[in-house]
């Protein structure tokens, strides 16, 4: 507790101390401070977006340059104080535009792309300015002093840090983290990823533009090479990375020592500076692969309480003590708990919940799903089985919005949902799990479930979502793991966690993609009982399975697919006796 108070107080104290620097009456310290603050602010703003999402943008220079040029072009016509918001707006608008066009590209491609984009903007600006004004350089002659710039940057840094801190505790922060860990899973939790990313990028770019606007008067003269200097994009990335990008303190921890180090190296060895820097850099990579803050793993994330030591989870099947499935989940009787998010309508009313008509999807010539139609009734467990590659998972992806069908229609609750994005479909009440578990090893169980509760559109506040998430996890027998990072769970519990995340959306329809696969027989018993208990509460479930015992036990009806087409439909016992099904799928007598 003390430590946490100390940490909370440390930052304002640091900032306060920093504010006193200009009174030292040493211009060099002010100059050093300006560099420091500039890089710290840029790195922090960059880290807010890049840290959680892992989208590494090299377009910093473009936004910075835009901010600087805003001042350069308008400082004689518009009061300085208005220029900062103006720069912010221009930066944000540009970033939003960039975001909308580019954020679907990921990884290295995004990075190189943003670089190309920044270069494109620079080239185009140069050409345009030359044609319009006949020159490319601008003089900025104001009476803003270095101290004023210092203080402005300090305020901006404080605001940026505050924003970053608030963000990390808000639903937006959670959403960004999820996007970085697994964008698709985030969408299936109802996160409007595009909007979140674009807004986050716009806001951080606005900060960068304001940094440009603040610093520009200091340079007196601007030309595209100065304003759009790519070193800037690179420097702040280095600083954030060396500091430890995913941590709140990372950018600061990077900026302070590095700027001072660069300065000292430069002062001492101006001609061999680059060489020494390179060697030093290689050593740092070998010695500190996780950044400066990697030295302090305990500071990892301010937000999350320290994870308890790994306790072997109950339910791990050991021979000596054969597992009895954890009880609480199954014993919670339907509808007893009014606050429970789980839908509690009566089972199998027979009305159609989801209808799929004449669905077709091809991938570059390969027909994955062809002319598929079926209906799912409310309250039933519906199985989709078939050989590998017969198109089962594609069907699930079509229903949940990952793919758009080439032809056909999907109707949910009487409304067509064909072509809607995953996050919209999730919000409408269709939740899913994934064939290969998609969890975020570094996040706690609670962090997995809260966003789904939030973004599914059911919880209004973080507290409400938290309560809901705790409730669901407890229901599934995971109350002991609320703060355990998911990576430390054993397999069955990871599966349960995925289920909890799906349930937090309060779905009307639950899609389980080989949810039981990879479980050993005793774990499977737990799993099947869990599914049964959900059905007991009236949840409608679509099940893709290879395990015939599960299909027999759980499914009310099922279809069998082969090469994208439906070859049988009916209750499991009948379907599994169908000679065609035996031939293409089961092979001989089913003894599995």
């Amino acid at each position, binding site marked *: 507790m003390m430590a946490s108070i100390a940490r909370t107080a440390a930052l304002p104290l640091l900032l306060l101390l920093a504010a006193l620097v200009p009174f030292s009456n040493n211009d060099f310290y002010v100059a050093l401070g300006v560099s420091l603050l500039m890089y710290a602010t840029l790195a922090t703003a960059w880290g807010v977006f890049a840290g959680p999402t892992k989208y590494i943008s090299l377009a910093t220079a473009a936004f910075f340059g835009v901010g600087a040029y805003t001042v350069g072009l308008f400082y004689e016509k518009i009061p300085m104080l208005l220029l900062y918001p103006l720069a912010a707006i221009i930066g944000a608008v540009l970033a939003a535009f960039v975001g909308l*066009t*580019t954020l679907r*590209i990921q990884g*290295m*491609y995004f990075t*190189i*792309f943003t*670089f*190309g*984009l920044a*270069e*494109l903007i620079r*080239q*185009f600006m*140069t*050409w345009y300015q*030359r*044609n319009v004004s006949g020159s490319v350089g601008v003089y900025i002659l104001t009476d803003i002093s270095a101290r004023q710039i210092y203080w402005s940057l300090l305020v901006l840094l404080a605001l940026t840090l505050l924003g970053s801190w608030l963000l990390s505790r808000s639903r937006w922060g959670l959403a960004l983290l999820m996007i970085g860990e697994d964008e698709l899973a985030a969408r299936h939790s109802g996160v409007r990823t595009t909007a979140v990313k674009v807004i986050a990028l716009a806001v951080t770019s606005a900060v960068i533009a304001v940094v440009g606007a603040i610093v520009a008067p200091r340079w007196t003269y601007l030309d595209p090479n100065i304003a759009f200097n790519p070193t800037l994009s690179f420097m702040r990335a280095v600083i954030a*990375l060396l500091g430890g990008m995913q941590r709140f303190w990372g950018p600061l921890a990077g900026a302070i020592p590095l700027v001072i180090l660069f300065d000292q190296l430069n002062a001492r060895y101006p*001609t*061999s*500076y*680059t*060489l*020494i*820097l*390179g*060697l*030093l*850099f*290689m050593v*740092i*990579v*070998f010695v500190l*692969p996780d950044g400066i803050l990697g030295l302090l793993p305990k500071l990892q994330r301010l937000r999350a309480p320290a994870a308890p030591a790994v306790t072997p989870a109950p339910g791990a099947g050991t021979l000596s003590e054969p597992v009895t499935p954890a009880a609480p989940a199954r014993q919670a009787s339907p509808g007893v708990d009014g606050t429970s998010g789980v839908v509690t309508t009566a089972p199998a009313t027979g009305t159609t919940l989801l209808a799929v008509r004449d669905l077709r999807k091809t991938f570059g010539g390969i027909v994955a799903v062809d002319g598929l139609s079926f209906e799912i009734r409310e309250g039933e467990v519906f199985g989709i089985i078939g050989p590998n590659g017969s198109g089962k998972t594609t069907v699930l992806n079509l229903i949940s919005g990952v793919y758009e069908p080439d032809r056909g229609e999907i109707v949910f609750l009487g409304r067509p949902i064909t072509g809607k994005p995953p996050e919209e479909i999730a919000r409408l009440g269709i939740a899913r799990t994934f064939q290969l578990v998609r969890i975020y090893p570094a996040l706690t169980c609670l962090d997995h479930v809260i966003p789904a509760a939030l973004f599914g559109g059911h919880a209004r506040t973080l507290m409400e979502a938290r309560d809901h998430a705790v409730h669901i996890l407890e229901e599934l027998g995971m109350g002991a793991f609320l703060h355990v990072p998911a990576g430390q769970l054993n397999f069955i519990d990871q599966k349960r966690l995925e289920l909890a995340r799906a349930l937090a959306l309060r779905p009307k329809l639950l899609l389980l993609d080989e949810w039981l696969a990879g479980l050993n027989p005793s774990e499977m018993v737990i799993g099947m009982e869990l599914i049964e208990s959900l059905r007991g509460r009236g949840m409608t479930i679509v099940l893709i399975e290879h395990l015939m015992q599960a299909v027999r036990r759980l499914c009310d009806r099922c279809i069998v697919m082969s090469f994208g087409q439906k070859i049988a439909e009916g209750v499991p016992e009948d379907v599994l006796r169908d000679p065609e099904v035996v031939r293409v799928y089961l092979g001989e007598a089913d003894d599995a």
Partner: protein
Amino acid sequence: MASLLDALVTGLVYGGVYALLALGLTLQYGVARILNLAYGDFLIAAAVFATLLYQHYQLSPLVSLVLVAPISFLVHLLVYHLVFVQLERRSGSWRAMEASSILLAFGLSFVVSGAMLAIFGGKLFSYSYLLVPVHILGSVVPANRLLAFVLALVFGGIAYLLLVRTRIGTAIRAIAVDPDGAPLAGIDVRRWAGITFAFGGIICAAGGVLISMFQTFNVPMGVSFTLKALVVVIMGGVGNAVGALVAGLILGVTESFVARYVSPGLTLAAVYGLFVLAVLTMRTGILGRALR
């Protein structure tokens, strides 16, 4: 019509430099899985080498080309084993080291350019060689540029044939697909990835020597060569030798056409515009990711 053909031919020939630049990097990045950010700096080192030999000993750069190829091969092999393999040893797997390897390559870039900077400072290097007109299809281009173009085709062809037609080439492609799984097929990843990296180094050095024949350069320009190469590599598809060739030539033609028919001021804007467009529409590059 004649001027259209002329724009095409000169564009293609001048695009040969882009292609040559990108070929070595695409092998190093796509196949050996090392995003060698020191690429441009090694290229400059080779260019400086050729320039000094030419200026002080009147040694033909064509001879330098033959000299510098094995040297560059050895240097790259050494760098690979002394730097990147050590990192892999510590990280435990090739996939895990990829991140750190980029940081390391970045440091290496500083070391290489820093060492040259300490010796030569920022001074410009320039000489002129093989500045002889060659007539092709009614267009005239300098022989040195044509040589770069031909060399790009030759190296691209060799890389393609080696990678696609030989067992070792197939093994190298397997390393590109799954470096951690390749040992299970009995492939010595360190050895073959190292050799591929060093082969990329030969192309890099050849590019440096050729560029020195017609372009003024200095040590700090290394990074811009790395970047240009990277743009072409991404456009052509990472690890795709033929893609790099095609993308390089397309960029050359684009520059030539924009300069002639739109405005010379927009040539680079057009190049980056094309790049941005290509990445947006074809996320895996012109010819796709795979090494075919």
